[in-house]
Each structure stands twice: as structure tokens, then as C-alpha cells.
């Protein structure tokens, strides 16, 4: 088909670029919470996907309430906050009940949190049913903007991008500019010394874990703009998310950013060139291959051991 003009080609290119960027922002949002928990605490949280689902379901509940009250246009931003709080509190409780008994035993944490994910899935199923749900969203978030002829930039994509930027900036500020961030970093580097200088490391752990889970909740809430939520939705994302974090280098936020960007763009471009399945396989194979070559990930400090 040679009907495609250069203007249309340009439009496709632009929209395709945006598709990559929006996949990047989705991956970033999913990975941030995990990166904090994994990077700072060394804890593998296999239930991360289910914490995202907690955020999604929170949004769903609020949307039901909102549509009863006629607040559909405005509830969504609040649901992000609510998702953060609900998922965060759930994470806080999980830390107390389970996680803190398993520090220093990463493989066991992995299995135990897998168990948690199964239990959460069944809870979702019992409460919300096996059917996937999808909150009713305000109209303004579902449209698209047209900066030029034939170019449609989805508003929800822009929204997720903006949110990812905001959250990343917020986390970076907390980590590197606040006293709490200092405590977290100190604790992750040397728990014993941190405790000795008067940091309540237990509290730091708890807050860190809760923060990570809360961020997962926000990601889940944002996700409702592009996908549905079912009891097992969370498990679809967990491997992708882990690969983003590991590929970026466990303790590095810049790494997580870079790896989410690389993977997002790569997958997006490959999808344009081949079938979705093969694009996914090729992306994963490349990431795994690179990880085998360079297990410490893209970015990491060279540490003397």
C-alpha cells in the first residue's frame, strides 16, 4: 500500500514513539515500588502484583460509590490517594505479620510472599468474584488529544506518563533529600551501625515496605485506565516488573528508569515489526541474555566485598 504519505508516516512514527514512552511509564510505575523494596531491603515481594490489584480494586469500589453519588468526573484523583493508603496499610501489616521474620532469608521470603499472593487472589475472588471488573472512568481521561492531522495522543497515556513522572520525582525527593531517605539508605547499607546510631531500623523497614506497596497500589489504580482487573491480574505483571528492576541494577533508581525505558521502547518497536508474542519473547530473551552477561544489571556501584 503506497497510499501512505510522508505526513502520515510521520504521524505513525510520532504515535509509535509515544506508545513506547507510555509503555515505559507503565513499567516504571509498576517497578518503582518493587525497586524500593528489593533495592533497599533485599526483600523479594512476589505479591507485588496483588498489591497493584488492591489499588485497582480500591479504585473500582470508589467508582461504584462515585457513580451512585454522581461524582464520576472528580473521583479519580482521590482514588489514587486512596489506593496508595489502602495498599500501603496492607503492606505495613504484612511487614509486621510476615516479612520481618524473614529478613536475611531472601529465597524463603520469595516463597512466603508467593503464598501471600495466592491468598490475596482468593480473597479478591471471594469478595469481587472471578469476573474481571473495570471501574467507570471520567470521560476526560478516556479521550485523545490531536496536536496535528492524523495524530491521536491518548489522554490516559499522558496521564500515566505524568503520574509516573510525579511519583518518580516524589520518591527521589524522599530518598535523597529527606531525613527519612537518609535513614533508609543508612539501614540498607549497614543495619547494625544504623541501629547503633539510633535509627529505629524496624520502623524504617516497615515504612519502606509500606511505601513500596503503596506505590504498587497507585500503579494499580492508574492501570485501571488501560486494563481490567481480575483476581489473577497481578500475576501477569510480576515477572516483567522484576526483570525491569533486576535489569536496571537492584539498588539504583536511575537504573530502574533506564531499564524501564529500554525495555518499553524495545518491546514497542519490536511489536511494530513482528507479532506480539514474538516481540515479547525476543525482548525477554534479550533481557535475560544481558543479565547472564552482566548479572549486576545496567547500573550499580562497584563495591568491594
Amino acid at each position, binding site marked *: 500500500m503506497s497510499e501512505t504519505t510522508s505526513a502520515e508516516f510521520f504521524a505513525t512514527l510520532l504515535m509509535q514513539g509515544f506508545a513506547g514512552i507510555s509503555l515505559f511509564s507503565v513499567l516504571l510505575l509498576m517497578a518503582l515500588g518493587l525497586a524500593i523494596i528489593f533495592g533497599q531491603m533485599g526483600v*523479594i515481594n512476589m505479591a507485588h502484583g496483588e498489591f497493584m490489584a488492591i489499588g485497582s480494586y480500591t479504585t473500582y469500589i470508589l467508582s461504584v460509590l462515585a457513580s451512585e453519588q454522581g461524582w464520576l468526573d472528580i473521583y479519580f484523583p482521590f482514588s489514587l490517594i486512596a489506593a496508595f493508603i489502602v495498599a500501603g496499610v496492607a503492606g505495613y501489616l504484612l511487614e509486621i505479620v*510476615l516479612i*520481618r*521474620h*524473614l*529478613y*536475611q*532469608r*531472601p*529465597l*524463603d*521470603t*520469595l*516463597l*512466603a510472599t*508467593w*503464598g*501471600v*499472593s*495466592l*491468598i490475596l*487472589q*482468593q480473597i479478591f*475472588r*471471594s469478595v469481587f468474584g472471578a469476573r474481571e471488573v473495570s471501574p467507570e472512568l471520567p470521560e476526560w481521561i478516556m479521550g485523545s488529544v490531536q496536536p496535528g492531522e492524523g495524530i491521536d495522543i491518548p489522554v490516559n497515556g499522558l496521564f500515566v506518563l505524568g503520574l509516573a513522572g510525579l511519583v518518580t520525582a516524589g520518591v527521589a525527593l524522599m530518598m535523597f533529600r529527606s531525613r527519612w531517605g537518609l535513614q533508609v539508605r543508612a539501614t540498607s547499607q549497614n543495619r547494625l551501625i544504623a541501629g547503633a546510631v539510633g535509627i529505629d531500623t*524496624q520502623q524504617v523497614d516497615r515504612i519502606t515496605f509500606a511505601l513500596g506497596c503503596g506505590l504498587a497500589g497507585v500503579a494499580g489504580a492508574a492501570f485501571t485506565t488501560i486494563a481490567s482487573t481480575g483476581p489473577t491480574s497481578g*500475576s501477569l505483571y510480576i*515477572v516483567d516488573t*522484576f*526483570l525491569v528492576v*533486576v535489569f536496571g541494577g537492584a539498588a539504583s533508581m536511575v537504573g530502574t528508569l533506564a531499564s524501564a525505558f529500554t525495555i518499553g521502547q524495545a518491546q514497542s518497536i519490536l511489536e511494530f515489526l513482528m*507479532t506480539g*508474542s*514474538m516481540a*515479547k*519473547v525476543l525482548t*525477554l*530473551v534479550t*533481557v*535475560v541474555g544481558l*543479565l*547472564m*552477561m552482566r*548479572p*549486576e544489571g545496567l547500573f*550499580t556501584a*562497584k563495591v568491594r*566485598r
Partner: protein
Amino acid sequence: MTSLLEYYRRIPASWRGLLILALVLLVVFPLLMGSFRLNLVGKYLCFAYVALGLVLAWGYGGILSLGQGVFFGLGGYCMAMYLKLEASDPVSTAIQSTPGIPDFMDWNQLTELPWFWEPFHNLPFTLLAILVLPTLFAYVLSLAMFRRRVGGVYFAIITQAVALILSTLIIGQQGYTGGVNGITDLKTLEGWDIRTDAAKTVLYFVCCGLLIVCIVASQFILKSKLGLLLVAMRDKEERVRFSGYSVADLKVFVFCVAALFSAIGGALFTLQVGFMSPSFVGIVPSVEMVIFAAVGGRLSLVGAIYGCLMVNFGKTYFSEAFPELWLFLMGGLFIGIVMFFPNGMAGLFQSGGRESLKQLWRGLIHMRHHDRPSPRVDEASLDSSLEPRS
């Protein structure tokens, strides 16, 4: 009777468990169960191969693989390819636009057999492939990683990713693999109908026999110096290295053995169930296989078999009787084992239950006192988690 007991006493303690297991599998089960349940047990026992491999790799080697389904699947698919070709002779597929090729290929507009299917017309090649292909894949995968000292959680995540890749690949390339349906409708092995009750009973005994062979082989490995080194590695990996051993090679070896066992299990599974599908390759079944080993006791060879049987029986029973409870139980099992019974049923059994109960009690007390219980597990996974070499 006394003389029997006397004979029993003369058996070394480490073989008694195996003897009892063999009696249970080869005598008690066949006597007690009809062919339907026996076939069910046979199916579960295929997963016991995986659990056995995990005891070696995870329990002793400290290598947690969340991708054992990959090897199970590779073994199973090799077997399935052979059986499918036998079932797709030109006569029974005459209705197709290209007779003589598997039905799903025909549906996907393939007009000739892909080259990598060709050798699977040959049974010796197939049997060899079942043993060699998965092992070779495990070798390539693990050599690169263990040489670079990737271990612990990184290895777990990467193996999980491999499971995802392989299952996506199988589903995506359905013309060559049968896609999400898998390779189905397998009928005969060298003309022998594998669907009859008689055949299933025979296959059950084959399955048990090979399983016992695998246990004996594992026993041999654990009793050799290599087994001693595995225990040593869990404790002080660095020391083993500085005693002149290549830790990476030892790990690669146990991982390959685990893969080999899984592959045998997969092939037997295909024979007993009559099909193979990507649903055994992916992430969820791979993680479930870990719990089989964990329930039985990650350090006990026979324990793994019992654990596997128990979890599977439990799954069958509970998902029938209380479907809504099953995931809670499964989840609780993961958490409970890790928190309170790190050595699984075997640990419970060896201490007459007392030790573990004490530990459970201590655990509960400690929880209240904001302290963590200290079952000695997985120290190895700790320091082997990642030591990048610059």
C-alpha cells in the same frame, strides 16, 4: 516374623526410608487402589521427579529454580512429539489437506513437517533427546550464570523468566508446537495403546521403578564426596573454592541432574496423561513444584515424594470439596512451611514431631516478642545471592 524384622534391622538406616517407599508404591497402592486412582498417583509421581531434583538443587545445592517446568515441559514435549507423529500416520489423517502431519500443523497451514520434528520419528532418538536436550539446556543456562556467581534470588527470577519465555514461545508458535492446546490426542507407543487401563497400570510401575532408580542415583550423589561438598558449599562456599573445587561446576552439575529428573518426569507424564501442554511449562506450575519439595522436606529425598503425593491429593480433594479454600490452603502452606517447618514433613518426622512443634511454639512466642525465629535454612542462598565479579 522376627526374622523379617531382623532383616529390616540389618538394612542401613538411610535405605529403610527408600524400602518403605518402594513397598508403598509398588505393593500397597496397587493393592488398595483401582486403576483410576492408581493412574492419578502415577500422574502425581511424575511431579515427584521434579521435587526430587529440587531436593538436590535447592535443598542441598542452595539453588532455587522457579523454572523447573521448563525441563519438565521439554522432556514431555519430546515424548509428545514422538507419540504425535505416530498418531499422525497418513491413513488416520487422510481427511487433512496435508495427510501425514500432525493435525494442528494442518490447521495452521503447514504443508510439511518442520525439520526439527523429523528426527522424532525415531524412538531411540526421542528417548535420547528426552535425556539430553533438557540437560544440555540446563547446562548452558546455568554455566553462564554460576560462572558469574549469579545465585539466590537472581537465579530464581531468571529461571522464572525463562519459564515465561518458553511458555510464550510455545503458545506463539502454534504451527510448530500446538499452541496453548498443546500436543493432544496421543494414542500409541510403537503400536501399544497407552490409553487402556492395562497400559496405564504398566506405565505406573514403570514410573515407580524409574523414580526409585532416580532416588538411588540421588542417594549415591549425596553419599559421595560431591554430596559432602554440597553440604560444605551451603555453609562456606568460599572455603570450598579455596579447597580447589570449582563451585560453579558443582552447582551446574546438580542443576543439570535436577533438570534431567524433571525431564524424565515430563516424558512419563505425557505417556500417562496422553498429552502435553504449555500449562506445565509456565510460572505457576513451576512454583507449585517447589512447594512439593518444601512440604516433604527440602533435605529429604523420600520426603519429597511423599510431599508431592500429599499436596496433589490435597489439591484434588480440596479443589473438589472446598474449592474456595484451596488457594488459602496452598498459600498458607507456602507461608507455614517457610516460617515454621523449614524441613517439611521429613523434619517433623525425624524429630518425632516434637522438635518442629517446639519450633512452631518458639516461633509464635518470638513473634510476640518482636524477634525472629531462627530456623537454620538457606544460609547458603544468602551469601550466594550475588557476588558480581569485576
